[in-house]
């Protein structure tokens, strides 16, 4: 099986220490994480991890089951790049005087789908989002103008085919219902157990 980029999407409780538990699953198998993003999801209290790794599907499938096995993880999906819409964001800092003097800034921005976020006397910060080659491209364009600093975010991805996680979560609760909450057997004989 061939290695390729896979996008792992994990829906989790927002729990201290879970990031470490998930990271361990990769590190103990010597799998390098290419990109990792975590943030709240559209559902209150549920976080979403986007993790990109370069592996075979078999490895990815097993990894996903291991992640899903963690107590605070609700559901994990994996997708190839074709199956997701994904973006990264990049910021570029260049000296304002040079860029103003020498570049056709307007054209440069239009051609690269970028926008200026901050313009100061000493520097200007541009921003663009896109796939890796698009954000890379702007580096090359800006380098001649004295690129001072560059930063790129982790990848975020959204599944093309999905109805959204909300529906999936409902389905999940329906097909794998949790046990009925039973009456607290101990409260009945509280005096016995909790005589104080």
């Amino acid at each position, binding site marked *: 099986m061939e290695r390729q980029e896979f996008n792992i999407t994990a829906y*989790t*409780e*927002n*729990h*201290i*220490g879970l990031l*470490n*538990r998930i990271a*361990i699953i990769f590190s*103990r198998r010597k799998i390098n994480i290419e990109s990792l993003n975590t943030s709240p999801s559209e559902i*209150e*209290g*549920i976080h979403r991890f986007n993790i990109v790794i370069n592996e075979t599907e078999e490895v990815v*499938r*097993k990894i996903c*089951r*291991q992640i*899903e*096995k963690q*107590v*605070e*993880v*609700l559901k994990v999906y994996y997708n190839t790049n074709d199956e997701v819409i994904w973006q990264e964001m990049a910021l570029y800092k260049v000296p304002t005087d040079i860029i103003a003097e020498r570049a056709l800034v307007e054209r440069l921005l239009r051609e690269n789908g970028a926008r200026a976020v901050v313009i100061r006397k000493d520097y200007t910060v541009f921003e663009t989002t896109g796939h890796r080659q698009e954000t890379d491209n702007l580096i090359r364009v800006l380098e001649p103008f004295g690129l001072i600093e560059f930063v790129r975010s982790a990848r975020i991805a959204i599944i093309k085919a999905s109805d959204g996680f909300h529906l999936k979560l409902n389905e999940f609760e329906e*097909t*794998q219902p*949790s*046990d009925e*909450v*039973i009456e*607290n*057997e*101990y*409260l009945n004989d*509280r005096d016995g*157990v*909790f005589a*104080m």
Partner: protein
Amino acid sequence: MSTQAQPVLEATTAETREISGAEVLLRGLLAEGVDTIFGYPGGAILPIYDALYDFKEELNHVLVRHEQGGIHAGQGYARASGKVGVVFATSGPGATNLITGLADAQIDSTPLVCITGQVFAHLLGSDAFQETDVINITAPVTKWNYQITEASEIPGILAKAFYIARSGRPGPVLIDITKNAQLDKIPFAGYEPCTHIRSYRPAPVVRPQAVTQAADLINQAQRPLVLWGQGVVLGAAEREFRAFIEKSGIPAAWTILGAGVLPADHPLNVGMLGMHGNYGPNVLTNECDVLIAIGMRFDDRVTGRLDKYARQAQVIHLDIDPSEIDKNVATTVAVWGDCKQTLPMLTRQVAERTHTAWRQRFAEFQAEEVDVVIREALFPTSAELTMGEVVQQLNELTQGEAILVTDVGQHQMVTCRYARLNESRRHITSGGLGTMGFALPAAIGAKFGQPERTVVAIIGDGGVQMTIQELGTLMQTGIAVKIIVLNNQFLGMVRQWQELFSERRYSFVDIQSPDYVTVARGYRIEGQSVSDRAALGPALQAMLAHPGSYMLEVMVAQEQNIFPMVPQGCSVSEIRLK
């Protein structure tokens, strides 16, 4: 914090009074049905020990001699009783001494709740005295862990801990409680056990169509073979398992943690799997047409070389943990779920069969193994005592009723092979981690878990020296654990490897022993040492008849090897008889 609904704490009833976090914890333990705690105190867990002083009647705390002993005792207790083992340790070195036992419990799916003390919350991360990052250190070796920094979290988190430890595939859970959380007073009116966590599914949903597919495969099979593991024991599905085997007539072999589910002399029990398992089931794994794995995880000690493992077979795998399916061996049909539930479904759909000719194959291999290996191991003609005959005589004297706890090495494999077990939870050993030093403390725990039963620890001269300090725990508690040290004056299993695979270069395996009987006497424990055959039987009888703990050293042959053996990197059908 998780957003899951926390158990209710009623705060304002008339009788409610404020109690410390430590007391809340102990009341929670009582509510969970805990009767025994293994532990060792220290500054960071002092408030809990202080509260324990008032609970002496209800909670039996066993003071061990080292935290590793404490957690192995907790494991032995859990494995013998089927209940959750509870362990206390202080912060820093106390907590780090638990790591080996946590790893052992994690890989052998043993339910434990470990409580560690931690420095005051305001000191966290400051390298305070005896502070260690217990949560991060233990993350890879726990099913779940949590650091409590406020007293109000204690009941809810404790309830979660017990639920997680014992549900689904069981495992060790650790709760680290800062000192302020133990000391602070909170209003407390009740403890509610946890029965649901939003993000946690202890068992996957059973898919009936998978069961039907499995039954179809089984009904078409000519040479089916069942491999069972500890999952059957953990699911308390011994009866369901037996019904399935007896109806389908399929020969069944076991992993060492599954021992006893079918009695040793059951006609369909064809023996032990794995590196030192029986000849027939190993070889015939590579000849069966349908392989039915039940609650076992295809550990590499069982499979040997994976690319030559059961390639010809269609594989059915029943497991409660979806991540085990296809992990090592690709399945044809995966039956997810608790085997207590899935086995009866399967039994209903399988045909009654006898598989006489196929079973005859196992009998032939067995006869050959008896000739080449077993007879001499159990009824030796040489002058030197063998480990096998010790186990054999113990079988006769205890009639399979005792709990045997083994350490790690040759004696462990001999015991696994030759102990005649009639029920599960009668053999306790460190299977996945292979922890030397496990047996003595685990036997202490097992005795607390099954006080009515005779508990015999069988330990090598190497392993016993790793946790020998727990003789002190025996002395102080006054419980009766029978200890057999099989002394071959070597780290036997390592020596065997050096003999077979390193041209007898015996590098640092000749270990010296103290005079065990004198050591035991120092702890007020009776004992004797035997080295000739005539003395063995009477010595075993004396040991069993003695009312208290007993140390029996048996001097056995120095250079004996355990066969059969699947050499590392070989396929199971390449198993060697000598």
